[in-house]
């Protein structure tokens, strides 16, 4: 059958600059480049290019650039080239379309419609270079009232377990299997250095990473890969994953080709078998079942670690979050529909779920209205792109955020959205030894540490400008936000005023 699928990218090579050294050929796991000695030039199979830009970065003479495939569509908004190509692919294969990373569709990005405040005259802005500027956050559940002996300075009973973050950012769940051990190790080392946490994802905890346990959140997802009492007690907190922003309502699938010996041992499944996480947890069909799992985990960890529950941002997210709080979760994680994934059905990724900004505002408002907001922690995720997004998220009501894609971009990810192929040229979303070797964990950790340090400084500058010197005073402080380009309903849900009001 003739394949109607067109190339997506075109490799542009400057003949004058190219020295035919072959670095591009050796860099590309997709087999795009070929140094053809017969022809005396370097050729390209454009159809294999995913635009990961590895060759562009590696080329010593900067001879390479990648452009879009120049083919135009027929000009309609309806039958775009993308829509037609999707049909061509499915007509060819009869399969579900797969995609990776976050929702790329042009839905509104509310972060970009929220502007931050600063002090002028009536209250001084605070200079983080001169004054302490606190970004430490604790996550966990709290009582409404403390019983305190003011003379002896004691508290009884003690407060529930908390995890301490020196920066209001953690690294979100990305499993060993979906990403390489070197990628996980980079994040683990960075988390240790920064005083924050990385999340194992649902693939278990590799033995090499156990030493980073105090900076680790272990995840329990529907597949329960790698879960045993030792695992539950290996981290600082446990996260029950109900859903993921990129693919609400469905489970996960790690192809057998990625399940090598190490992945097999860590996930506790046979080598080479597909690791399939069911769509629901088959022991959670309702909120009271969730309560049982939360308390089973608390029992297994002797009530020494907070338990988080992660859900995808879906239509009824506020009521669900309230139910999760009442089911005994200490931390609620809400993951928006632009959050990344190693692989998801394209239609789910592009069409299911709601933006994190609206979901977060709705969850915070609901918990507040029910008088329980201060008793649980809320973590937002699903495409936090910069320090300014973190400030906005906290002002909308988050205690802290998870980042996934941003941390991977720091490691070298160029968002080519081809994670599912297992051929990641940056050594991140792959298990191939020749590729994972490209990611040096020490250097990777340093890049991530640099990123978060830079962000944290920016956060300090921005909240200092607002006249705030502790991030506690930013949480839910929606007066520090103003909307632009939003309609009344959007402003109402976000709980912010329009700029100029």
């Amino acid at each position, binding site marked *: 059958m003739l394949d109607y699928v067109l190339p997506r990218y075109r490799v542009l090579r400057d003949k004058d600059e190219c020295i035919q050294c072959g670095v591009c050929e050796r860099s590309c796991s997709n087999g795009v480049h070929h140094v053809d000695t017969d022809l005396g030039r370097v050729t390209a199979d454009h159809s294999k290019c995913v635009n990961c830009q590895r060759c562009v970065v590696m080329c010593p003479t900067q001879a390479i650039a990648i452009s879009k495939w120049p083919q135009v569509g027929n000009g309609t908004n309806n039958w775009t080239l993308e829509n037609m190509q999707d049909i061509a692919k499915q007509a060819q294969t009869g399969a579900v379309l797969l995609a990776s990373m976050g929702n790329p569709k042009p839905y509104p990005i509310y972060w970009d419609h929220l502007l931050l405040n600063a*002090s002028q005259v*009536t*209250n*001084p802005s*605070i200079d983080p270079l001169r*004054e*302490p500027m*606190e970004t*430490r956050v*604790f996550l*966990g559940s*709290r*009582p*409404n*009232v*403390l*019983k*305190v*002996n*003011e*003379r*002896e*300075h*004691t*508290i009884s009973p*003690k*407060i529930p377990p*908390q995890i301490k973050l020196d920066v209001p950012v953690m690294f979100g769940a990305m499993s060993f299997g979906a990403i390489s051990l070197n990628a996980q190790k980079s994040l683990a080392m960075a988390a240790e250095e920064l005083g924050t946490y990385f999340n194992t994802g649902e693939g278990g905890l590799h033995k090499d990473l156990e030493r980073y346990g105090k900076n680790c959140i272990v995840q329990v997802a529907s597949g329960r890969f790698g879960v045993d009492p030792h695992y539950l007690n290996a981290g600082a907190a446990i996260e029950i994953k109900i859903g993921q922003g990129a693919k609400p309502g469905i489970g996960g699938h790690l192809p057998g080709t990625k399940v090598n010996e190490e992945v097999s041992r860590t996930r506790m499944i046979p080598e080479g078998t597909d690791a399939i996480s069911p769509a629901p947890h088959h022991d959670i069909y309702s*909120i009271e079942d969730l309560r049982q799992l939360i308390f089973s985990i608390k029992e297994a960890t002797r009530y020494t670690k907070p338990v988080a529950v992660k859900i995808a941002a879906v239509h*009824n997210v506020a*009521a*669900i979050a*309230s*139910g999760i*709080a*009442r*089911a005994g979760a200490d931390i609620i994680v809400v993951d928006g529909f632009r959050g990344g994934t190693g692989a998801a059905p394209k239609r789910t990724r592009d069409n299911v779920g709601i933006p994190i900004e609206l979901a977060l505002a709705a969850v915070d408002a609901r918990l*507040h209205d*029910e*008088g*329980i*907001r*201060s*008793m649980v922690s809320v973590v937002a995720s699903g495409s936090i792109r910069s320090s300014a997004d973190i400030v906005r998220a906290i002002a909308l009501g988050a205690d802290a955020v998870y980042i996934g894609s941003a941390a991977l971009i720091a490691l070298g990810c160029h968002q080519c959205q081809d994670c599912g192929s297992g051929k990641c040229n940056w050594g991140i979303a792959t298990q191939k030894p020749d590729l994972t070797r490209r990611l040096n964990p020490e250097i990777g950790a340093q890049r991530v540490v640099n990123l978060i340090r830079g962000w944290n400084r920016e956060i300090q500058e921005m909240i200092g400008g*607002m*006249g*705030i*010197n*502790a991030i*506690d*005073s*930013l*949480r*839910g*402080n*929606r*007066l*520090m936000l103003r909307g632009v380009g939003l309609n009344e309903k959007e402003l109402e849900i976000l709980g912010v005023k329009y700029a100029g009001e």
Partner: protein
Amino acid sequence: MVPREGDVRIPSGCAISGIMDRSGTRHDGTDILKSIALMHDRSNGLGGGFAAYGIYPDYHDFYAFHVFYDTREARSETESFLNDCFLCEKQERIPTDETVRSIKNPPRIWRYFLQPNPHKLAATEYDEAEFTMKAVFYINSQIKGAFVASSGKDMGAFKGVGYPEDIGEFYRIQDYKAWLWTAHGRFPTNTPGWWGGAHPFTLLNWSIVHNGEISSYDTNRRYVEQFGYECTLQTDTEVITYLFDLLARRHGFSQEMAAHIMTAPSWDDIDRMDPQQSAYETALRVVYSSALVNGPFSIILGSEEGMLALNDRLKLRALMAAEKGSMVYLASEQAAISVVCPDAENMRSLDGGVPFVVQLDEVAERKAKESPVNEPVPSKLKGSRTTAPVSTDRRGV
């Protein structure tokens, strides 16, 4: 029309002053008037006021309501509400000096000495204080043209639109005797021109005079709202008062502890403490993180116990203290103390984040014997997590 306080948020700068006799001996309003008048330039004629404690010894078991009315209808509606919920021992116009020319368009100002109607009280789930507080919230938010300026026992607020020294003359505060006086001169950046918006802000026995603009306002507001407080005025003073009421009255902490929670030590300091102290301060900060007050402020809190002064953690607003015998003086400027007590001793600037507590001698004696463990008032309001999952959505969980 210029929007009223409560419709908009209006930042303001201010002068504050406080004079207290620890022995409980009462003094007339001459000194406090002099002290606040000296700081004339720190206000702009758009608000001033006084709080006085110990002024109604003959009625000291009654809630003294000072109420502003814009209209006769507002008064009749309020009075029928008060007659319904309270037993009224006495009601009268508050005497004022209408010859003070700079005071324009004052409202009708009345006072009532009240006790909750025992039958009404028994029918609710509230204690006496909570019942009275709810009544104040009701009048202020539901009865158009009525505003309760103060509602404590044996105390009252005298406030309005004008320079504080003119407001003092208008209310004839020299005619009252109090063991604690606080005063406020306001410099709002807007022109609300509403008497209810002037300071001190009060709630039951609390009164607060405040200089500053808190940048944590919305965080603090959302926090206290969870416990049933309604921030109708959108002012810093209002939310700080509710924080004190929540922490000291409802959660049962000492006022000093409440102030400590609101200006918690920095994490750097906590990290340097010994492990037990560090765990103690960490638990307080973690549980009460939304009660942290940020941004520049200096406040004087008045109550039946005495006064408490507090500065923001970074000490971004001025506040001076001095003593002489049983007298304690506080003011935004040193000169405002010297003008009434030239030989005041121990004159100093208060440190940021360190509560300065002045208690009546008898209160201090009593407190020393009390248990150091707080006794929270059992809350029947929101915030209970033990209830079954409920949802107002049709698609509940």
